[in-house]
Structure formats: structure tokens, C-alpha cells
């Protein structure tokens, strides 16, 4: 074997190792990726499809990942782009009707309905049903839901969420803020009527 061939062989072996390592690292995040996906779409089947499409693309384009950067955010960026491509643009930009309630809205409602002292206990949130929380999240307009799910379920920082969604960090903050207010408004309506 010539020197050039030997060199090519060594390079191929190194690449194969890098690729396998990339795949193993990416697989470590599968559960976390699924948890976010599940709340971005309406059914478990859709979430499974979306995660599989995400991994199929990630595995094919592994070279575009920069080692040492945030792989979980990189995967979620693929996922949110795929989710957009899946024709979810059917939804119009949500109408921004004024939402006067402040951030203490839900707490104030619950405090008023049960006596202020009860707010001291963690149990007060358990009066909000699990289904109620899931439904309230899925009722959020897409743009708001993306941010709320990335930060509250995915535990991404504002900066990571901005990078994933390719929007300025100020947009993440305002959508998050508004999204959470809508969420609390919905939860208050559901639990208190």
C-alpha cells in the first residue's frame, strides 16, 4: 500500500470513529428531545415522527455540528425547523389582544379563592389538574408555545432558545412573558371557572 493510500485509510478510520461518537452523543439526548417535541405537537405519534425525522437529519448532516458546542440545542434547532416545515404555518399570527393580567394573576386568583395563607403551601398548585396544564400549553399560540416549551420543559436559557428559534433574545423574552401570562390566565379559568 502506498503512503497516500495509508493516509486516506487512516483518515477514513478517524472519520468513522468521529461519526460513531457523534451518533452516541446525540442518542444520549433522545429522551430530552422527545419531551420537548411532545409538547410542541398534539399527539404522541406526531412527536415520535418528529423526533425520528430530527435524528435522521442529524445523523445525515453530522458534519455540520461543531464539536464542543451545545448539541442538545443543535438537535432542537433541527426539530423546530422541521416542525415549521410540516406546514404548521396554517396558524395566523396570534392576535395580540391586550391581556391586562399581571404575573401575579393566577396566584392572586387562587389566594382570593382559598384564603391567602394557603399560598404558602406547594399543594396549592396541585389543584391545577395535570390535564389542565397539558391542555393550557397546547392551547398556546405556536410562537409562544415554542418559547415556553423550550424554556420551561427543555430548560434552555433565553440565549439558547433564541439561537434555536433564530429570533432575537428580546423576542424570546417577550414571547415567554406573554406566553406564560396566557398560560396562567387559561389555568385560572380552568381551575376557578
Amino acid at each position, binding site marked *: 500500500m502506498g503512503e497516500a493510500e495509508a493516509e486516506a485509510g487512516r483518515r477514513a478510520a478517524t472519520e468513522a470513529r468521529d461519526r460513531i461518537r457523534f451518533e452516541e452523543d446525540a442518542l444520549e439526548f*433522545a429522551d430530552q428531545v422527545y419531551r420537548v417535541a411532545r409538547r410542541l405537537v398534539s399527539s404522541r405519534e406526531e412527536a*415520535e415522527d418528529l423526533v*425520528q425525522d430530527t435524528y435522521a437529519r442529524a445523523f*445525515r448532516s*453530522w458534519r455540520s455540528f461543531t464539536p464542543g458546542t451545545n448539541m442538545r440545542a443543535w438537535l432542537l434547532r433541527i426539530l423546530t425547523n422541521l416542525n415549521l416545515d410540516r406546514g404548521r404555518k396554517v396558524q395566523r399570527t396570534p392576535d395580540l389582544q391586550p391581556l391586562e393580567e399581571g*404575573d401575579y394573576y393566577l396566584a392572586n386568583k387562587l389566594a382570593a379563592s382559598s384564603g391567602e395563607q394557603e399560598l404558602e403551601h406547594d399543594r396549592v398548585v396541585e389543584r391545577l389538574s395535570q390535564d389542565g*396544564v397539558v391542555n393550557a400549553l397546547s392551547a398556546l399560540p405556536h410562537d409562544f408555545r415554542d418559547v415556553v416549551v423550550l424554556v420551561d420543559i427543555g430548560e434552555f436559557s433565553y440565549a439558547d432558545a433564541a439561537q434555536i428559534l433564530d429570533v432575537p433574545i428580546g423576542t424570546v423574552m417577550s414571547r*415567554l412573558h406573554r406566553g406564560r401570562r396566557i398560560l*396562567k390566565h387559561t389555568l385560572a379559568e380552568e381551575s376557578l371557572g
Partner: protein
Amino acid sequence: MSTTDPCEKCEQMLQPYLDRELSVVEVGEAEQHLNACEYCRRRYRFEESLRRYVRLTASERMPPGLLDKIKELRGQPEGI
């Protein structure tokens, strides 16, 4: 909207405070008010447990079998 009301200011800092996105100076400002104000303190605690509760109840584990399906996607030809 008045910005001089300290509780209102505290309410505005609630979200970034819990997200750990406030500057050190702002954290100090928020905590100074929280130490003195039971009303806001309760609401911060409530919000914190609400966050935890949302994360817990809305976070669904990957279904069994999905990981194996994903593993089969490895080694496909490269490209977008």
C-alpha cells in the same frame, strides 16, 4: 402604569428572577424587596412551585421502542 410601586417592580422581575436571567445587581434588588414583603414573597414561591409543577406534569418520557427506531437511522448516506 406607575413604576414607583415596589411590588409592581418586583412583579416585573419575577420571570427573569426565576429563570436566573437577572444581573447580580437586579437579583440583590429583588431579594431586598422579597425579604421585606410577604405579599411578593408568597407569589414568588407560588410561581416557583407552579414552574416545577408544569415541568413535572407536562414532561412526558420517551415511549419505549422509540430509541431503537432512532438507532436504526444511524449510518445513512450523508447530506441534508
